[in-house]
């Protein structure tokens, strides 16, 4: 297993991107920029696509591409992950660097945050150095204006030698300037662009290399840029260079001699390798600073004062953790309270529709087995998924997205970094953990934002220890059925929310514990460094978030429900109705699993439901309900029948708590497992990602069920 971290590191560069052009004349433009400057918002606005956006650095971890047409010119826009510079520190930044530096594209649109333009320009200057056509897009002009930051776009454009447009990507009408500039870009020849000036000895070294490099590499790359990279000697870049050139340029005798001579001379001037690299990095920073002089003016000096006030509460010594729990409880409370009504409405509707369908089947003289398989099996599970699982998901997801939009998540990472560091893990794991609340598979992909391969693997392996959107409804329904009662109104839903919050606190604690365990055993190591930008707070775009997440999410869930729940319903019905001897196959299976499941406070049916729920956790409760009903010959549920049904099948408080624990901690769903396999490129790490939460869940259930059994 020792080879794991390396293989995790190399995934990004191996996943080659294929650019899909609609016409040969299409211009390929990369949308690059620092993390969290609104690249995805710009991308979505231009292409009409719906890449997920959010106010935290590292939202886009993979490359997305879309097509748009401006004034008759076709563009393939490529949304690449955010990066601070072209010297990558993590897998996702490597993706960005490789795309900007090595792949063939016609132009780069560098999106900048107007509120900290100087820092954003560092990347823009480095991208200009590669010699490609560039467009500087200064985003969030409205926010900057509110903060009293004034930007002279004309002066910037003049100094940089590239077109500069100011936009506010959240307001669609400001995008017309960007579209105009983009279509102008492909027609105009590249002008004289600003070049980063380096210190004397470095400039001389570059000059001595340039002509040799040009002869060796041709015009595929800018020779000044290539000379600098040869001096910098960055291994991953040189490997990528070898791939795109088809030969290793550093092995050419001529180049080797020239680089050797240049470095000797630099050494005489007091430039060792470390100083060369430092100088290349710091000169870009200083040039960015110089360009911004007079072009960026701050009218108000304390332009971030209100953010600091909010921070003093949300990350303050006493209030940070209570505020975190309170916010979480609030989100859950709204979810539970809000889901009650649509859930009742939907199940009523489905019961009515079910009766109608059954009557229809009877009228058509359909054979009994067909009616059973389709109505009791497929339709039964399907309607349960939609009525019980969908409403909480449809409410939780937009609420969570709003929290994400507001810029709160990086503060969570900031607050939780210390505990994670104590477990030799990275605070950014808190971010991927939060993403896991939405979807574990997305959380696993999100782990690419973590720099150190070791810490990234820890985050990947522990991600499914927090419940995802598909598991929340299981928790909510079991809590409301067994501990609160579904009709106890305001106080009841508040109590349910608090219970759920404590369950989440438990899962976070277990995540920390397992991270510690991993870093003491298979993933030994010291915590690496941690640098996290905390973006300004922003008002979430309520309407857009709700519309987008309800539509995207609802459609997604409905699709998955059809794909996973329908066959599961069919399987359950078949198992319940095919007899081997005197008893149905379902009873055989349940009976087989039962003694084992009892050890953990569960029963055979529940365990089977979890096993059949592997494709999608949303189906676990519906499958269990279906299985209980078919074995009890019950065909229809009354509105408050779930509790009765469960109790009739021997559930008590101990069973309910065991189910809650097992819901929190069991194997990840199939999608998550496949994502882990893709991200780690290793069967053994995937197996561990399966085994770890399962072991945790079985242990927790075993301990609980047996202690509770003794006490009773």
């Amino acid at each position, binding site marked *: 297993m020792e080879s794991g971290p390396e293989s995790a590191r190399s995934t990004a560069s191996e996943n080659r991107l294929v650019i899909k052009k609609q016409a040969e004349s299409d211009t390929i433009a990369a949308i690059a920029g620092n993390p969290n400057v609104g690249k995805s918002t710009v991308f979505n606005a231009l292409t009409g696509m719906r890449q997920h956006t959010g106010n935290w650095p590292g939202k886009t971890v993979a490359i997305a591409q879309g097509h748009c047409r401006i004034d008759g010119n076709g563009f393939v826009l490529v949304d690449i992950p955010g990066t601070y510079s072209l010297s990558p520190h993590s897998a996702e930044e490597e993706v960005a660097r490789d795309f900007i530096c090595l792949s063939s594209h016609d132009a780069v649109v560098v999106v900048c945050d107007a509120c900290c333009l100087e*820092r954003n320009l560092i990347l823009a200057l480095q991208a200009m150095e590669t010699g490609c056509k560039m467009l500087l897009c200064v985003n969030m002009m409205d926010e900057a204006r509110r903060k009293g930051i004034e930007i002279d776009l004309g002066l910037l454009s003049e100094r940089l030698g590239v077109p500069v447009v100011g936009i506010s990507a959240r307001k669609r009408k400001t995008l017309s300037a960007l579209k105009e500039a983009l279509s102008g870009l492909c027609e105009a020849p590249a002008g004289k662009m600003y070049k980063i000036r380096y210190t004397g000895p470095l400039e001389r070294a570059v000059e001595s290399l340039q002509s040799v490099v040009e002869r060796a590499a041709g015009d595929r790359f800018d020779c000044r840029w290539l000379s600098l990279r040869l001096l910098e000697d960055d291994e991953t870049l040189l490997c990528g260079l070898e791939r795109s050139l088809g030969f290793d340029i550093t092995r050419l005798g001529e180049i080797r001699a020239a680089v050797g001579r240049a470095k000797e001379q630099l050494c005489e001037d007091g430039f060792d390798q470390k100083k060369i690299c430092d100088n290349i990095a*710091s000169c870009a920073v200083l040039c960015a600073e110089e360009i911004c*002089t007079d072009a960026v003016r701050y009218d108000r000096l304390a332009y971030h004062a209100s953010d600091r006030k909010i*921070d003093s509460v949300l990350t303050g010594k006493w209030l940070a953790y209570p505020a975190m729990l309170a916010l979480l409880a609030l989100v859950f409370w709204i979810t539970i309270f809000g889901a009650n009504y649509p859930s009742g409405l939907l199940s009523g509707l489905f019961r009515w529709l079910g009766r109608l369908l059954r009557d229809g089947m009877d009228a058509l003289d359909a054979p009994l087995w067909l009616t059973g398989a389709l109505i009791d099996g497929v339709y039964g599970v399907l309607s349960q998924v939609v009525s019980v699982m969908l409403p909480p998901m449809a409410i939780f997801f937009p609420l969570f997205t709003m929290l994400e939009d507001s810029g709160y998540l990086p503060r969570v990472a900031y607050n939780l970094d210390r*505990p994670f560091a104590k477990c030799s893990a990275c605070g950014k794991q808190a971010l991927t953990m939060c993403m896991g609340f939405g979807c574990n598979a997305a959380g696993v992909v999100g782990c690419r934002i973590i720099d150190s391969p070791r810490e990234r693997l820890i985050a990947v392996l522990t991600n499914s220890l927090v419940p995802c959107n598909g598991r929340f409804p299981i928790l909510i329904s079991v809590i409301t059925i067994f501990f609160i009662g579904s009709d106890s109104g305001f106080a009841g839903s508040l109590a349910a929310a608090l219970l759920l919050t404590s369950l989440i606190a438990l899962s976070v604690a277990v995540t920390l514990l397992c991270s510690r365990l991993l870093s003491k055993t298979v993933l030994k190591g010291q915590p690496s460094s941690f640098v996290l930008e*905390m973006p300004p707070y922003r008002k979430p775009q309520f309407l857009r978030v709700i519309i987008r997440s309800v539509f995207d999410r609802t459609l997604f869930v409905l699709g998955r429900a059809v794909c996973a729940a329908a066959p599961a319903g069919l399987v359950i019905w078949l198992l319940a109705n095919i007899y081997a001897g005197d008893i149905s196959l379902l009873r055989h299976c349940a009976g087989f699993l039962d003694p084992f499941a009892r050890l953990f406070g569960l029963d055979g049916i529940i365990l089977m439901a979890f096993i059949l729920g592997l494709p999608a956790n949303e189906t676990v409760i519906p499958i269990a309900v279906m299985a209980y009903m078919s074995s009890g010959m019950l065909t229809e549920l009354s509105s408050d029948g779930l509790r009765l049904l469960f109790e009739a099948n021997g559930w008590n408080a101990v069973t309910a708590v065991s189910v809650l624990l097992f819901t929190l901690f069991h194997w990840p769903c199939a999608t998550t497992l496949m994502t882990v396999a893709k991200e780690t490129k290793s069967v053994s790490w995937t197996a561990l990602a399966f085994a770890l939460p399962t072991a945790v869940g079985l242990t927790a259930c075993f301990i609980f069920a047996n202690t509770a059994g003794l006490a009773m």
Partner: protein
Amino acid sequence: MIHCLDDIETGRSARIVAIEAPDDMRRRLMDIGLVENTAVECVGKSPLGDPKAFLIRGAVIAIRSADCRKIIICAQPEDPRTAGDTYGIRS
């Protein structure tokens, strides 16, 4: 006495003298604009005191204490108007 970034209190600012961190970390810090002579202001601590938040070239960046100890600073003349504002220093 040599001071490091971990020594400055919330609300105070300083100027970077050198970054003694290992290559990878140093480059990361330089990429976010933390080079020699950059002005830095400490704008807060996380609830457990580590990491701390710094205002660097207009952005708030969280850095762990262990890493801060590798960043050497010198005192910045206390002028609240230019705290964290690099333009103020140059003129």
